[in-house]
């Protein structure tokens, strides 16, 4: 058994809503994520899956419980955990290359070095030739590629991906999933990936954490035992792939009494 990269230890999150009511978004979540694992968190909207990711990122402080990365208590954001958001969150006043170099320069890397590494990363995500473009001039898929390169640039041990392909069309989404797996095969970072697409979760992950909502709890953890490297075209015909999808689909099937 590999050492845990991320430990989530009895974490609960309560939000104040209007009036004196409060909403329990996460209830007593415990989860260990091994170094180098690709783990997806799957659940209906409002189950607190993004909140869990933000807690690991250090962007949100849990009401109860703690989270650790490499055994160290998480007290805030840090360059060991790189986020990729659905909204891309690129710096619009910086060029594509400027965005990718931003974190490296922040870490004190020399400009020439950051420039070279930035160009290399852009080539890796398929954006060679777009270095001087501004984010505004790119399509959604290209923006997300820049965002992934920008986060990989400062070499975080953990990638925190918050529905990164949720705003993209089906075709772009598939291509980015494939490319993400390619990158992951090369770099083997620990990935925590939030999604509400069952197929996406099964295709990408070693483990799928299925959550239920109100309050958000872990319903089940499913190990995905499919060979890697995975190719989408092969998997679509694979009975095991389909079985996982159906199995998980049934788990998160929303019954009216869940609402």
């Amino acid at each position, binding site marked *: 058994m590999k050492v845990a990269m991320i430990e989530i230890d009895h974490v609960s999150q309560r939000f104040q809503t209007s009036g004196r009511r409060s909403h329990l978004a996460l209830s007593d979540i415990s989860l260990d994520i091994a170094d180098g694992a690709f783990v997806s968190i799957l659940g209906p909207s409002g189950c607190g899956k993004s909140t869990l990711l933000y807690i690991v990122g250090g962007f949100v402080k849990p009401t109860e419980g703690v989270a650790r990365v490499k055994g160290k208590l998480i007290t805030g954001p840090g360059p060991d955990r790189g*986020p990729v*958001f659905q909204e891309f969150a690129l710096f619009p006043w910086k060029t594509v290359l400027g965005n990718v170099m931003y974190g490296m320069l922040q870490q004190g890397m020399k400009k020439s070095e950051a420039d070279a590494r930035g160009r290399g990363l852009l080539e890796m995500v398929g954006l060679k030739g777009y270095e001087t473009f501004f984010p505004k001039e790119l399509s959604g898929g290209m923006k997300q590629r820049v965002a992934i390169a920008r986060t990989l640039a400062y070499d975080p041990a953990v990638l925190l991906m918050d529905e990164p392909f949720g705003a993209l069309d089906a075709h772009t989404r598939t291509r980015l999933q494939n490319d993400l797996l390619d990158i992951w095969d090369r770099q083997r970072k620990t990935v925590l990936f939030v999604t509400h697409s069952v197929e996406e979760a099964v295709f990408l992950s070693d483990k799928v954490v299925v959550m239920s909502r109100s309050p958000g709890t872990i319903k089940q953890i499913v190990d995905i035992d499919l060979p890697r490297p995975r190719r989408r075209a092969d998997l679509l015909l694979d009975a095991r792939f389909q079985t996982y999808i159906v199995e998980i689909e049934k788990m998160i099937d929303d019954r009216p009494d869940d609402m």
Partner: protein
Amino acid sequence: MTARGVLKALSPLLACIGLLCVWQFASLRLDTESFPTAIDTLKAVPAILTDRESIYNILDSLRRMAIGFTLAVLVAIPLGLLMGRIKAVADFFNPLMMIVYPVPKAALMPIIMLWLGVGDMSKTLVIFLGVSLPIIYHAYQGARAVEEKMLWSGAAMGMSARARMLRIVLPAALPEILTGCRTGLVLALITMITSEMIARQSGAGNILFNALDMAQYDTVFAMILIVGVMGIVLDAAFERIRLSLVRWSQPRGDMPLSFS
């Protein structure tokens, strides 16, 4: 350049000529002493611009305007940004803004004159007040609109709160801030003239109203023309600077929305 392009480039000039023609025609038609013709007015312009005292007066005005505007920018941008990102600061200043915003700043001039005299200090202060509010407001709106996730991305790169304020919030809000500054610049010109009308001692507004008192109507109109041209030139120059700073927020190859 196509014929259409030439026409487009010349359109501001054509508009000016058209306006002068209408003016010329109207004043000839009305034929009253208090409405000099466009040609008479244009003839009076060189007299003002070659008069040493007039030039000093105009430069005095511009100096006060520049100082008032610069001070306002230096105070209003940080304040607006802090209001946009820190709730306590917004809670404190917002009610204050709501009260002060609709008050015409020139209306405060009598009180300020009473306290600070009729000199530079009062006039600069009124300009400062007039310019500050739109810039604070726009900086506040701009800072508030900055995407939380963008700041989180910065935090994950190891940026401190201070660094995020200076290097994420400020550039992200810059287009909005500069819109405020553009409004502020025009307001600076307005408050400049108004303050000189009230506290007549020096400046472009002073020349204007002295000429009016002495029934030198061609000078009055010429001065209005000079102040108007000053406004147009300042605005066009600012628009140039603005566009070069926020090129990233303009679509590539798009024509700027200015005739400068």
